[in-house]
C-alpha cells in the first residue's frame, strides 16, 4: 500500500467512525429520553437513596461494638478543622477591614487641617500627632482589636 493510500485510509476510518459514533449517541439519547426510563429512574432513585441510608445506618450501628470510626466520624473531625479555619478567616477579614479603616483615618489626619472643611476629623481640636505617634496609636489599636476579636471567638466556641 502506498503512503498516500494509507493516509486516506486513516482519514476514512476517522470519518466513518465519527459518523457511526454520532448515530449511536443519538440513538442512546433518544432511548434514555423516554417515559418508561423516566418512570424507572423515578422509582430507582427513591429505592437507591433508601438503600444507601439503610446500609449507612447499619454501618454506624456496627461501628459501636466494633469500636471503629466511620466515614462520618472522620468527616466530623475534618469539619471541625474547616470551621476553625473559617473562624480564623473571618477574624483576618475583620482585621483587614480595621487596618484599611485605620489607614484611611491616618491618611485623613495626615492631611493639612485647613485644606477642606469637609474632612470629618478636622472638627477635632486635639493636637495633630506626629508620624511616630500615629504609627504607635495604630499598632496599639490593632493589637487591642485583635485580642478582643480572639476573646470573642473563644467565647463563641
Amino acid at each position, binding site marked *: 500500500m502506498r503512503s498516500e493510500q494509507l493516509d486516506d485510509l486513516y482519514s476514512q476510518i476517522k470519518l466513518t467512525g465519527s459518523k457511526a*459514533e454520532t448515530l449511536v449517541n443519538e440513538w442512546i439519547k433518544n432511548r434514555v429520553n423516554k417515559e418508561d426510563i423516566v418512570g424507572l429512574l423515578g422509582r430507582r432513585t427513591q429505592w*437507591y*437513596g433508601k438503600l444507601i441510608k439503610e446500609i449507612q445506618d447499619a454501618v454506624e450501628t456496627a461501628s459501636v461494638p466494633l469500636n471503629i470510626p466511620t466515614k462520618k466520624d472522620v468527616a466530623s473531625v475534618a469539619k471541625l478543622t474547616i470551621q476553625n479555619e473559617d473562624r480564623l478567616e473571618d477574624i483576618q477579614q475583620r482585621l483587614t477591614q480595621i487596618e484599611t479603616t485605620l489607614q484611611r483615618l491616618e491618611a485623613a489626619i495626615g492631611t493639612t487641617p485647613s485644606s477642606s472643611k469637609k474632612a470629618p476629623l478636622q472638627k477635632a481640636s486635639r493636637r495633630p500627632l506626629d508620624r511616630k505617634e500615629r504609627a504607635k496609636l495604630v499598632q496599639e489599636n490593632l493589637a487591642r482589636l485583635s485580642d478582643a476579636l480572639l476573646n470573642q471567638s473563644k467565647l463563641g466556641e
Partner: protein
Amino acid sequence: MEAERFSLETTRWSSLFRAFTDGASIAASTPRQALWKRNKATLWYYPAPVKKYHTPLYLVYSLVNQPTILDLMPNTSLIGALTKAGYEVYLIDFGIPRYEDRDMTIDDYVLKYIQPGARHALKHSNSDSITVIGFCLGGTLAAIYAAMAKEPIENLILFVTPVDFSYFPKFDLLHQAIKEERIDLSPLIDGLGIIPAAFINYGVRLITSPVYISPYLSLLEKGHNQEYAHKWSLFNKWTKEHIAFPGAALKQIVNDLIIHNKLMTGKFTIGGEPARLQKISANLLVIASTNDELVPLEQALPMITLSGSKDKELIQLPNGHTGIASGAGLPTNLFHWLSSRSHPVHIESEEVI
C-alpha cells in the same frame, strides 16, 4: 522513503497504545504562586512578564472539573496567552471536595471562596477594579457573584455559561420529570452526601457523547505527530479528571436553578440577599459556542437580555464546550474587547508624570 513511513507508523501506533496504558501528568505550564488558601481552595497568581494593564483578571472555573485545562500547554494555554498580553491573572481553584464538604452550598462557594478571593486579588494587584471571567458553571457562579458583589467589577466575561435552565432539548422528558418532582433526586443525593467523580463523568458523557471513540480515531489519524499526540494525551487526561460534587450544592442547583429557574425569575438569593442578574452593571461579554452540547446557546444567550450592564456584547464561536478554555482558537476580538475596557499601565504613568 519506506524507512521514514515505518518510523511514522511506529510513532502513530505507539501513541495510540500509550493512550490506553499511560496517564500523562498535567502540570501548570505558566509560572504561578499560591496567594491564599482556604479549606481545599487556592488562589493562584500568574504574574505578567510585562504588565500592560492595571485591571487584573480573576478566573472562576467550573465545579465539575479541574481548572488545569486553562493552562494545559505553553503554546495553547489560555492563562499563558492572557499573561503574555500583559494582564495579571488570578485563578480561584476550588480544589477537590471530599465527604466533609458535603454541606457546601452555592452560597458557600460565592461567599467563602469567590468573594474573598476577589478581595485578595484586588489587594494584591493594588488595583481599583477587577475583571471577572467565568467558565461554564463557574461562569454561573461568577454572574451570581457579580450580581451581589460589593467589590468594583469593571468587566464580566462569561464563557459557555448556563443561566437559563429551562432548555434541555435532548432530555426534555427527564427535565420535565425532575421539574414535576416525579424524579426526586434528594434521597439519592442525601444518601451519597458527595456525588462521586465517576457519577459526574457518566452524567457529562450521557449529555455529550455516551460512546466516545472519535477522539481515539483522531489520535490514530494524527498520532504520528508527536506534539499532537502529547496535547491529545493531556487533554484526554483532563476530560477524565472530573471531580466530586458537594451534595448540598447539587441539591441547590436542582431545586433553585433547574426546577425553579431562579436566575431567570430574579429570585435567586445568596446568604439571604437577592442576587439579581439585572443588578450587574459591569461591562459584559458573553462567549457562547454553537456546537456545545453541554451548554447549548439557548442556555447562555439570555444573560445578554437579563444583565443590567449598559455595555454588553456577544461572541458566538463554532467551538465545542472546551475549545475556548483549552486556549485553542482564542478569538482576537476577545483581546480587543478586554484591552479597550482595562486600565492600561502607560496612560496612568503619563498622568503621574
